[in-house]
């Protein structure tokens, strides 16, 4: 592209951007069906907007969770059938990405729990991938129709408190299982000592993901802020807390698992 063409492209892009911005200012906002208070309350409680799952009204977060599992199933099948059999000793870019992901969680498990880490590695890999992809999932804005007939964009699975409680408690149970397998009753005692762990893990994740959802809701609620700003708020914030939350939960789980599964040394 020569200099003239580049200048012309920049000018056209700038004119379009200004035109769109002026358009949004002139057109104003349509009448909102919900107040900001209702929107935010619903984002927290999911009391109103329910989606039907085979006739059972559920939170949209559960639909998101199942969609994420579906995405993973298709992706994993494609990778298993087409990519993994063609793995090379010197990896290409995609192979390197897969190996880095698996190696990262495997190392996390091995480093934090050197005595027992086979199951832990697989668990933190699943949990980390689920949190990361599930959080990024809200960026795609897939739509679902509620039981009231309203179209909503599907949120992150873990912004649903039930999903967050499930993952927090399951992580606690995994830690407990590590304690029992390694140290029998002493392991149970060690795990029960951290009784606040399931609550703290669940609500930390719920709070982190919910805050992201709330900020995004707030930004989208005002039409003036929905121009340009969501690029920063939506993409960067979501990407950051997807990474941070995936790391925090997997790291904490590995750490506590390693602590309770460490064999007792008798002096």
């Amino acid at each position: 592209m020569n200099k003239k063409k580049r200048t012309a492209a920049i000018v056209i892009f700038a004119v379009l951007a200004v035109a769109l911005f002026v358009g949004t200012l002139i057109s104003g906002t349509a009448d909102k069906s919900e107040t900001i208070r209702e929107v935010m309350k619903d984002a927290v409680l999911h009391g109103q907007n329910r989606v039907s799952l085979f006739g059972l009204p559920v939170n949209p977060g559960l639909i998101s969770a199942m969609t994420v599992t579906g995405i993973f199933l298709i992706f994993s099948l494609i990778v298993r059938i087409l990519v993994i059999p063609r793995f090379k000793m010197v990896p290409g870019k995609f192979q390197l990405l897969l190996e880095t992901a698996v190696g990262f969680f495997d190392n996390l498990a091995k480093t934090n729990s050197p005595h027992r880490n086979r199951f832990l590695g697989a668990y933190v890999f699943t949990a980390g991938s689920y949190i990361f992809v599930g959080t990024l999932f809200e960026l795609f804005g897939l739509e679902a129709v509620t039981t009231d007939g309203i179209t909503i964009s599907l949120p992150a699975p873990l912004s649903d408190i039930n999903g967050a409680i499930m993952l927090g408690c399951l992580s606690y149970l995994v830690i407990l299982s590590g304690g029992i397998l390694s140290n029998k009753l002493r392991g149970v005692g060690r795990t029960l000592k951290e009784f606040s762990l399931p609550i703290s893990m669940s609500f930390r994740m719920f709070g982190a993901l919910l805050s992201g959802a709330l900020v995004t809701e707030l930004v989208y609620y005002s039409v003036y802020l929905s121009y340009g700003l969501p690029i920063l708020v939506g993409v960067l914030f979501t990407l950051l807390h997807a990474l941070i939350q995936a790391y925090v939960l997997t790291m904490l789980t590995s750490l506590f698992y390693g602590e309770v599964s460490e064999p007792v040394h008798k002096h």
Partner: protein
Amino acid sequence: MPLNIDWQQILLHLLNFVVLFAILYFLLYKPVKAFMEKRTEQYRQMDEEAKKKVSESERLKEEYRQKLDAAEDEITAERKKARAEIEAATAARMERAEAEAQKVLSDARRDIEHERNKMLHEAQNEITGMVESAAEKLVAQSTTSEAFDQFLDAAKRGSVNE
């Protein structure tokens, strides 16, 4: 329940997660990890083989060095031995040559002595013959007493010369 917590939905989330765990474990985590472990094992074997080869070459190098040292020692010993042999042979030859020279010299001396004696004996015989013939001549020319005196003079001269 507060915060819209619903046990049924928690269990559905759990079911979903268990399915996801099975999918990711069997389709992604396990095969990728198996491949990585296989590669690590392969590299470990290669490393082990390389180390084994290095140690083997070190051993061979040491062995060759020792052999070289031994060969050098052997060469030095052989050289010393050869030098000693050469010196011994030279000395023996010199001794033999000297003995031969001595023998040649003594033979020569003996021959010379023999020749001298032979020549003296011949000379004596010749002189005696000459004296006899001279005496005969004198006897024929002079008286018996003069001839006798001449004979005695000639005999005296012959014994002095001898």
